[in-house]
């Protein structure tokens, strides 16, 4: 695991319909320390997914730089694991093969990479599903596979793009609790994108509020871990922090 540094990042699109340049990201700087968990929250269209796509290397930057462990990144790479809102599993591979994909790309032998995959599947309570295909699983289980597929490749930074936005509310709460548990166990460096304020406060050590392509505020979340919804739902500190972030997002 390594740190993630974003310096003076900007992104400008040419808007085909308006015929003008549109700046989606203005001069964003952000530091995620090694082993830290930072959530970026903001209304739709604030540019949070654009930032993640640039960090992942899916789209080019217009300005600034992105460093992982102090080294600039260029294009997609296994140093940055990504968890997608749409899960993006390989439908033609079993759950085990999906999770073993990253190690396979690194040239890890079949027996060893399957052992790695099984270890991570156990971490997400997916051992039973190893030989099933993604379409045979519920959305919640598919995204568990998505999370451990990224983790099993041992990335320096884990990028999560609204990963729980397309599962039902109960499943989402379970997945959030499991993610905090897995994070405490493996301590990956995480950048988590969401529009859900409660989710951001529940999961992260720091919540960055983004508005119109600019960082509005950066709030430390000093809630004790392990975190669970049963404990935090009625917790005064959790409510106060959530309200504070919500006010910022609404003012944005």
């Amino acid at each position, binding site marked *: 695991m390594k740190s993630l540094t974003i310096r003076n990042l900007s992104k400008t699109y040419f808007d085909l319909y308006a015929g003008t340049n549109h700046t989606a990201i203005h001069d964003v700087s952000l530091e995620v320390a090694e082993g830290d968990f930072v959530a970026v929250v903001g209304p739709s269209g604030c540019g949070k997914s654009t930032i993640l796509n640039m960090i992942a290397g899916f789209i080019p930057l217009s300005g600034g730089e992105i460093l992982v462990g102090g080294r600039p990144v260029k294009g997609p790479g296994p140093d940055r694991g*990504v968890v*997608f809102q749409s899960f993006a599993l390989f*439908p033609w591979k079993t759950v085990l093969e999906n999770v073993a994909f990253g190690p396979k*790309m690194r040239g890890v032998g079949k027996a060893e990479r399957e052992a790695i995959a099984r270890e991570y599947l156990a971490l997400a309570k997916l051992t039973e599903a190893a030989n099933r*295909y993604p*379409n045979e699983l519920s959305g919640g289980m598919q995204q568990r596979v998505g999370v451990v597929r990224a983790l099993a*490749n041992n990335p320096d930074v884990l990028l999560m793009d609204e990963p729980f936005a397309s599962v039902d509310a109960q499943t989402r709460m379970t997945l959030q609790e499991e993610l905090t548990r897995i994070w405490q166990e493996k301590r990956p460096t995480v950048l988590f994108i969401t529009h859900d304020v409660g989710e951001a406060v529940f999961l992260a050590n720091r919540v960055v509020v983004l508005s119109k392509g600019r960082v509005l505020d950066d709030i430390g979340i000093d809630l004790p871990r392990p975190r669970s919804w049963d404990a935090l739902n009625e917790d005064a500190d959790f409510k106060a922090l959530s309200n504070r972030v919500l006010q910022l997002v609404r003012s944005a």
Partner: protein
Amino acid sequence: MRSRQRFLSGLLFLLPFAVLLVLWAVLVPWFDVNPRLFPRLSAVAEAGVESVRDGTLVGHIGASLLRVLVGTVLALVVAVPLGIAMGVSPVVSIFLTPLFRFFSVLAGIAWIPIATLWFGYGFGAITFVIFNAVFFIVTYNTLLGVSTIPPAVRNAAASLGAGRWAMLTEVLLPGALPNIVTGIRTGLGFAWRGLIAAEMIATNVGLGYMLFVARDFYRTEVIVLGMIVIGVLWLLLDRLLLAPLERATIERWGMVQRA
């Protein structure tokens, strides 16, 4: 339970044919139909036994199947890589899609005149017709298959460390496979029809030729025998080879409703 269901559905499939055979066996002698217009069932059966015994039927079937095999394999070898290469680039795919759609629906038989001019009568011309019937449809379907792979899935592979070769073999090819298999199934259907037509015109061996020559001697029992063989062969090919292949990929992976 499952095997019982399959047995029943097989029985239901065969039942109408059995009724048809019975009607044929009864009605044709009853009305004393001129054998030059339509043969009796017994005559077709005798012709079948005879042509198996003297080896002519096997020779015709072998010639026809070989042409289909060679034409199809050649078409796949060219079509799949081409379709993937085209599908990877949105610009190329948008530009070429209309052309491949046009040639996909152009009947295979329409190629026969030009095929005989280019290759003369025989194996080359007929294989060319098969090649075209399979090539355009499979290329088009491969292209379609690649372009329907969600960008997030390709991004996921890239961020897990997949290089160009792994992207091709682990993502693009399997991702397009359901479409490719559907293309092969449709293309072979067209190829089979085109084959029979081409063999009537451009060769001296094969099932189509067998039908066409029998007509010159008023051997309706051979014509009908040939028609039955053509139909049965296609059903066997489609039901035992192509349909299971399609099911294995599409249903297993749940990629039917993928858009």
